[in-house]
C-alpha cells in the first residue's frame, strides 16, 4: 500500500468530531485490502475497533480519527451565517478560506471573507479576528436557505505533494496516526505475530479524549500504544525540539509506562529505526493521558509523528516518519508477543 496515497486519502476524508462515521468506511476498506481476516466492530460511543488474531498478549494501538472543524451557530440572513469552533481552532486560520459543510442535502460551499484593506480602519489592522467577528458567505451555493444551525464543516483543501517526501493537507492531526496504524497492520502480515492486536480508531479526541477512555475500558489490553502527532517547530528553550523527517517521537514521562518506553526504544535501536525522544513532565495532551489510568491501569506508551503547522489546513508530514512509526509499532507488537511466549530474552 502506497503510504503517500494512504495519507492523502485519509487527509481528504471528512471526519470532524461527531462525524467520524464518515471516515470509518475508508479505514475499513484499507484494512480489508490488507487482510480480510479481521473482526470489525463499533464500541462505546462508536469507536471503530479492528481485532486481529487471538490469545495473549493483547496489544492495542490507539489513534483518534476526528479532526477539528467548525459548526454553524446562527443564521444571520439569506446569505450569511455565524460559526463556532469544534475542537481547538485558531480563528485566524479561517480567514480567506473556502469551507465545506455537510448538510442533509449534501455538501455546501461557503467562504469566510475578510474586509478589503482599502476599507479597513488603520487602528483595526492590528486586531486579530475572533469567532465573534467571523462569518460565512454562502452566495456561491444558493444562500442560507438549506443550511441549519448545527451543520458541521471543514476548510476545503486537498492534500498535495511538497518536496522531499512531504505531504501538506488538512487533518494530518491525526490521519497520520490512523495511517500509522494501518501501515503497522500491513507490516505485521510479514511477521510471526502470535497474540491479539486491536486497532482502535477513536472518536472525540479533540473535545476531551472522550472516545479513548471508553475504548480502553472496553478492550483492557495488556499493552497500549497511542499514536498521535507532535510539533515539528522550534519549541521553548527548556524542552527538546523535534524535526520532521528525523523519525517518530517516543515519549517518556508521567503518563507513560517505563517498561513500554524502554521496549519501544530498544525496538527502534535493534531495527535501525530513526527516532527522537520527548520528556513529558505531567500531561502529554494526547489520549495516553486517559488510557493509562482507565480501570486498574493500563501499560501505555506514546509514539508521535512530528508535523508542521498543527491545527491549520496546511499541516505538513514526512512520509518516511509514518513508515518508521508503523514499522516501530509492528516490531514492538512482535517483540511483546515473543516476550510473552518466553522466546525472547529481554
Amino acid at each position, binding site marked *: 500500500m502506497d503510504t503517500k496515497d494512504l495519507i492523502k486519502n485519509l487527509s481528504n476524508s471528512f471526519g470532524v468530531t461527531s462525524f467520524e462515521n464518515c471516515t470509518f468506511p475508508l479505514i475499513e476498506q484499507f484494512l480489508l485490502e490488507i487482510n480480510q481476516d479481521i473482526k470489525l466492530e463499533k464500541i462505546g460511543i462508536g469507536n471503530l475497533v479492528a481485532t486481529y488474531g487471538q490469545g495473549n498478549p493483547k496489544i492495542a494501538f490507539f489513534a483518534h480519527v476526528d479532526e477539528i472543524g467548525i459548526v454553524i451557530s446562527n443564521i444571520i440572513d439569506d446569505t450569511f451565517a455565524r460559526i*463556532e469552533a469544534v475542537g481547538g481552532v485558531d480563528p485566524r486560520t479561517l480567514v480567506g478560506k473556502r469551507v465545506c459543510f455537510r448538510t442533509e442535502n449534501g455538501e455546501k460551499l461557503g467562504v469566510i471573507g475578510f474586509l478589503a484593506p482599502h476599507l479597513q480602519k488603520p487602528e483595526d489592522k492590528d486586531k486579530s479576528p475572533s469567532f465573534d467577528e467571523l462569518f460565512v458567505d454562502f452566495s456561491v451555493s444558493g444562500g442560507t436557505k438549506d443550511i441549519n444551525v448545527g451543520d458541521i464543516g471543514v476548510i476545503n483543501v486537498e492534500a498535495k505533494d511538497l518536496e522531499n517526501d512531504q505531504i501538506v493537507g488538512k487533518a494530518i492531526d491525526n490521519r497520520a496516526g490512523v495511517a500509522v496504524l494501518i501501515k503497522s497492520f500491513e507490516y505485521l502480515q510479514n511477521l510471526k505475530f502470535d497474540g491479539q492486536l486491536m486497532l482502535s480508531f477513536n472518536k472525540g479526541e479533540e473535545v476531551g479524549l472522550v472516545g479513548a477512555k*471508553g*475504548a480502553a475500558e472496553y478492550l483492557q489490553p495488556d499493552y497500549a500504544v497511542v499514536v498521535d502527532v507532535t510539533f515539528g517547530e522550534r519549541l521553548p528553550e527548556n524542552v527538546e525540539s523535534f524535526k520532521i523527517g528525523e523519525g517518530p517521537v517516543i515519549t517518556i514521562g508521567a503518563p507513560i509506562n517505563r517498561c513500554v518506553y524502554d521496549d519501544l526504544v530498544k525496538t527502534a535501536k535493534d531495527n535501525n529505526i530513526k527516532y527522537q525522544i520527548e520528556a513529558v513532565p505531567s500531561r502529554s495532551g494526547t489520549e495516553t493521558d486517559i488510557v493509562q489510568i482507565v480501570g486498574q491501569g493500563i501499560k501505555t506508551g506514546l509514539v508521535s509523528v512530528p508535523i508542521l503547522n498543527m491545527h491549520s489546513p496546511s499541516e505538513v508530514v514526512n512520509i518516511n516518519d509514518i513508515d518508521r512509526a508503523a514499522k516501530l509499532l509492528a516490531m514492538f507488537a512482535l517483540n511483546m508477543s515473543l516476550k510473552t511466549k518466553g522466546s525472547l530474552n529481554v
Partner: protein
Amino acid sequence: MKELIKNITELYGPSGREHKVREFIKKEINDYVDEIKVDKLGNLIAIKKGSSGKTVLFDAHMDEIGVVVTHIIDGGFLKIEQVGGQYPFNLVGARLNFNGRIGVVGIEGETERELKENYRNLSLDNIYVDIGVSSKEEAEKHAPIGTFGVFADGFVDYGEYCLSKAMDDRIGCATLIEAIKQMKNNHHTVIFAFTVQEEVGLVGAFVSAYDYDVDRAIAIDVTDSLDTPKALKRMSMKLGDGPCIKIKDLASVSDREVVDWIKDTAVNNNIKYQLEVLTLGGTNAAGYQRTKSGIPSCTISIPTRYIHSPHEMVCYSDVENTVELILALSKSYF
C-alpha cells in the same frame, strides 16, 4: 405544572447539600416508578421498566449554584467563596439564604478610589456578607464556616413565562417528575437520574449510570436564550421556539445519531424544537460519555434568560414541550 415548578425551584439545595430536593422528588415520584434508589454520592435514581431491550437515561441535576462561608470577620461579617459559577455582580443587591438566615452583600473600599475600583472590578474577594448580627460569636451561631448560601428569590408566574431562582436545573428536574407521572407504556426501560454536584464539576453524572447498561443518555438542562436586547449574536436560541437539541457546548459534542433520533422523534410527534450550539458552559452529558465504555449522549436544553442569576426566566410552553419530547422518546425506537 406551575405549582411543581414553584415548589421545586424555591427549595434550598446548593451543590453537595441537595437533601431537601432529593426528599421532595422522592415523595413526588415514589408511586410512579418500578425501582428507586439513592447511590453513595446522593444521586437519586428511578427506573420505569420497558420491554424493547434498550435503556435510555434522562438526567437532571438537583443542585443549584451558591456560595459558602469561609471566614467570619470581626463584627460578624462573612467572607464567602463561590459554589459553582457565580458572577459577583449577581450577588450585590441579591438576598442570600444561608440555610434559613438571610444575608446581603456589601462592597469593601477604604478610600473613594478603592471603592470605585472595586465597583468596577467586583470579585468575591472584595465583598462581604451581612447577616444582621453584631459579633463574631453571634455569626458563628447562624452561619458558621462551611454554611452554604443560595439566592433567596422566589417564583413569579407571568403566564407565558415563569421566573425563579434555580431554574438551572430544577426546571429539568420538574420536567422529569412530570414525565414520570405521565409516562405510560414506555417501550424502552427509562432511567431517571436526579444527580448531585453538577455545578462544581459534573460530579454525580460521572457515576450515576455505573450500575446500568445504558444505550443512550440525555441530560435535561438549561441553555442561554438570545432574544434579549443586543444579546450575543453568535448563538440562535430563543424562548418559545421549543426545547433545544444541543449540538455542542464547551464540555461535549453530542452524538449525532442521538441528535438525529431526537430530531426525528420531535418531527414525527409534531413537537416544536430548536438546534443549539452553545459557545460556553457544559452539561452532565459529558459525564455519561465517560461512563465505563462510553454512552452515546446528548442534551435537551430549555432556553433560559439570565442563567446563574437570582431570576432565571423560562417560557412555559418550552417546558411543556420538553415533557412531551421525553414521553415521545420513551416510545421511539432506535
